[in-house]
């Protein structure tokens, strides 16, 4: 009886995947609740690198956040800064602040020179805080704030006997300030409608497209009101989409969607896969992200083709695992697998194959589940407890292939339901071992890679990739994820019309991700804001408060 229940739960769960998910989400989230987002590690680095340049060292490990609805970016809307997490922010802040005012960097990072390096210089300090504070807090600092920071820098310069040490101590405080590490969008009421303030709009836009806080130009567009006009918005969206920083945004979205933080802990058994070195681990992740950025940003091609494209980028370490030669072993080189290659598309890249395997062997179940959950937005239930797996594990040496093992496994009806969903697609990738290398046989037995995805039959990995490419859920899953990512929350039933609209525009564009981003960035829903505790957070009257800061 128990087993039947599990089977049903599993099948129903999948068949009604989106409906169930949406129904469940409806009760959990209000559609447009603009929750405060905590800055993520990539946003932190992207933002600060844009302000202080690439020569300053940025911390590599802020506290990890939980993944919600398939995305860490949604988790950021619920993440809390614990004591341990604050410690990491604080350490990072101090190391960055020290580096910024290091003699090797301050020459070009400071807009002015102090009259004496041993004494306070309020005018120079003020100039720096006005300029940098505006970029960190995404708005001009108030006169009060500016004075407070200048005063602290002054007092610190006196007690430390050094102008730059005072600047550094003050900057390290700004880098743990709530205004910097939290994005809590301000709203205002215009003609009776609650909407994000222009500055908050600018933040949304740059977070979506660049995965960073706005640059000065975008803030200026917000400050002078042009971002609130259609023409001004178009101009900024076009500018951001055309910028090289779009690659940061697209890269971050896909690293998030593909759960690439798992690479931090990916390990293979060195005795079984001696060639799968740390370099291969790092390069395989980078290969996939480079492929995606090149395909979707540089070439502006059909999203669905990332499952079939044979064009990619390789290093010597990767080429060794793929079994191909590259001509410039010192660098990343563009590479195209030949037309009749077994490789092509994301699923046959080492990143996917190795990530969804065991340390010592492949796993059709993990691979199948990952395809369903990541690319088709379907939920495959966790395996049930209290199943005696060993009863079906047959130590019989005549069982040589994963398919044969799983067939035995599926004799148990408790397991059969879910394995029916994951295995037929996962088995198509069995020509690739747990490290992603090609193999013609498993323990001497021929590998059968045929299978079916819904109604599409295929005989091998290339066929599976084609089936995924043609599956209508593939682009609509991306739309669902991208919209959730943009809004910082799971999309639900109330978003049905938005999703349907975005879906049809995405299809009309030929599934160009740049166009998808543009559609979202131009949609009013993207900037919609609820009343917080039934009040706008910034009354229109406040908008005229005097602000100080560079408007360049």
């Amino acid at each position, binding site marked *: 009886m128990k087993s039947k229940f599990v089977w049903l739960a599993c099948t129903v769960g999948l068949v009604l995947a989106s409906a169930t998910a949406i129904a469940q989400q409806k009760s959990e989230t209000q559609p447009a609740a603009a929750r405060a987002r905590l800055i993520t590690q990539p946003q932190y680095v992207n933002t600060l690198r844009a302000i202080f340049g690439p020569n300053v060292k940025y911390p590599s490990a802020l506290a990890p956040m939980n993944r919600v609805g398939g995305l860490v970016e949604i988790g950021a809307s619920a993440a809390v800064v614990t004591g341990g997490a604050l410690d990491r922010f604080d350490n990072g802040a101090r190391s960055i602040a020290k580096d910024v005012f290091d003699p090797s960097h301050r020459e070009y990072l400071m807009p002015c020179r102090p009259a004496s390096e041993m004494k306070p210089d309020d005018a120079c300090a003020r100039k720096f805080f006005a300029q940098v504070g505006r970029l960190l807090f995404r708005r001009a600092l108030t006169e009060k704030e500016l004075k407070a920071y200048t005063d602290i820098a002054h007092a610190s310069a006196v007690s430390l006997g050094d102008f730059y040490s005072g600047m550094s101590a003050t900057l390290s405080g700004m880098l743990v300030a709530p205004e910097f590490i939290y994005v809590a969008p301000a709203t205002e009421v215009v003609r009776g409608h609650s909407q994000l303030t222009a500055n908050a709009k600018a933040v949304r836009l740059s977070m979506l497209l660049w995965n960073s806080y706005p640059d000065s130009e975008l803030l200026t567009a917000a400050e002078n009101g042009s971002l609130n006009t259609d023409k001004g918005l178009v101009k900024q969206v076009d500018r951001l989409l055309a910028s090289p920083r779009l690659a940061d945004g697209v890269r971050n979205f896909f690293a998030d969607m593909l759960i690439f933080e798992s690479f931090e802990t990916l390990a293979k058994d060195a005795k079984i896969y001696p060639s799968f070195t740390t370099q291969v681990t790092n390069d395989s992740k980078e290969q996939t992200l480079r492929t995606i950025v*090149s395909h979707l940003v540089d070439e502006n091609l059909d999203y669905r083709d990332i499952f079939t494209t044979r064009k990619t980028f390789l290093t010597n370490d990767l080429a060794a695992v793929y079994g*191909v030669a590259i001509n410039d072993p010192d660098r990343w080189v563009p590479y195209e697998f030949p037309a*009749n290659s077994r490789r092509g598309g994301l699923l046959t890249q080492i990143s996917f194959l190795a990530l969804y395997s065991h340390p010592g062997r492949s796993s059709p179940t993990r691979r199948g589940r990952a395809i369903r959950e990541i690319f088709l937005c379907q939920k495959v239930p966790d395996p049930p407890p209290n199943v005696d797996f060993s009863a079906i594990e047959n130590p019989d040496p005549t069982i040589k292939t994963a398919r044969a093992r799983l067939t035995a496994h599926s004799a148990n009806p408790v397991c059969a339901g879910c394995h029916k969903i994951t295995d037929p697609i996962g088995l198509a990738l069995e020509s690739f071992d747990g490290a992603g290398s090609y193999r*013609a046989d498993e323990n001497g037995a021929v590998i059968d890679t045929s299978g079916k995805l819904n109604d599409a039959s295929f005989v091998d990995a290339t066929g599976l990739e084609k089936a995924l490419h043609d599956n209508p859920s593939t682009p609509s899953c991306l739309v669902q994820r991208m919209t959730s990512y943009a809004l910082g929350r799971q999309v639900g039933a109330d978003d049905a019309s938005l999703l349907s609209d975005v879906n049809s525009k995405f299809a009309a564009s030929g599934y160009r991700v740049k166009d998808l981003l543009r559609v979202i960035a131009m949609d009013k829903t993207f900037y919609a804001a609820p009343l917080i505790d039934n009040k706008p957070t910034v009354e229109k009257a406040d908008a005229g408060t005097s602000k100080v800061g560079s408007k360049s």
Partner: protein
Amino acid sequence: MALGVSSFFRFLTGLQVGTSRVALLAALPLALVGTPASAETIGLVMTSFHLAGPFTNDGKKECPQGLNPDNRDNFRAQYKTPEEQKEILIKYGSTQMHYRGPNGESDTYNPEAVKDLLPYYDGLGTVSVGVNLDSTKDGQATDKTCKHAKFANESGDAVDNQLFRVFGCVKALRPQGLYDSFITMEIPQLVVNRWLVEITGVDDRTNDNQVDVTIAHGLDEIVPDGNGGFVAGRSQRVDEKAASYIQHTKGRIVNGVLITDPMPELRITGSGIIEVFERRFKDARLQLKLTPTGATGFVAAYHDVQRFYRFHAKSLGLHGVAANVSMPSIYASLLRNADGDKDPATGQCTSISGVYTMDFVNANIVRQSSKKEVAEVISKGAATARP
């Protein structure tokens, strides 16, 4: 010559985890669509290099009288009292004990001027890998060779390896000795040690009566794997600017072992204790047993005594104390054991036979000159440096 479907599958079966046969996977499926298959290419890059010979762990068997004294021992034998020793060291302004000639000649650069007083023992033994270089069964003198004791290989064939006689009881050159350890360390570290072997025209990996062999200097690193070996299947560029190091010969594969034809002079760069030099193997033959991930075997050849001494003097002699060698004894032993290129005038042989064992892993050997071909399948976009 054509690669049949069965051998195609055999080839694929041979592909091991994390490694690759050099024939590009890209090229292989073409074989299945009716065009005659091109024969397989096997690319190899050298990962280890050691003097061959019947070494035992404690050396008791091949060196019953112990390991040879070094220059410090000989210095003390030559100058017995502390006063004498001090006087010589002060006279030549050195803490080293190299200036032992009658006029202060260096024992390293002028070995003929110094006579070591302590005895020097050649390595004893009868078994070694190698090749019968002088074609005699007993090592008797011929017009071109000098009398020497032969070794027997595993099959009982007579082979030559006189370098073992010279170095068998020298601590530094024995396995894990200082010189040997340095070479082991430097092979991955210094690209000057990158030794590529490319076997083309392989129709059958087990038995093939004719294959082409190219030996060249490579430009790329070899990378340790997670299991104490080196990663197989990485790409290795041929150093095409060093054209004189690109050398060709023919060979055959017998029971999975590549046996090359003799090469009059095989030249390859190498290093020893950071000194870089060029090795010249005369009348060289390679024998390499092919494995799924690489090859293991040896190079047997003659070495010009004077030349061989010179580069060893530089790397070994200067580290005399630490390396436990005394160069005048080594020089004398090289001349005493020399067995090739007899000088008709003096009757002294001027070169010496020697065998070095080597390991290789598979590599994809690439040439810049073929870049255009590959470029056609490369998508657009400039190559960028690794982040």
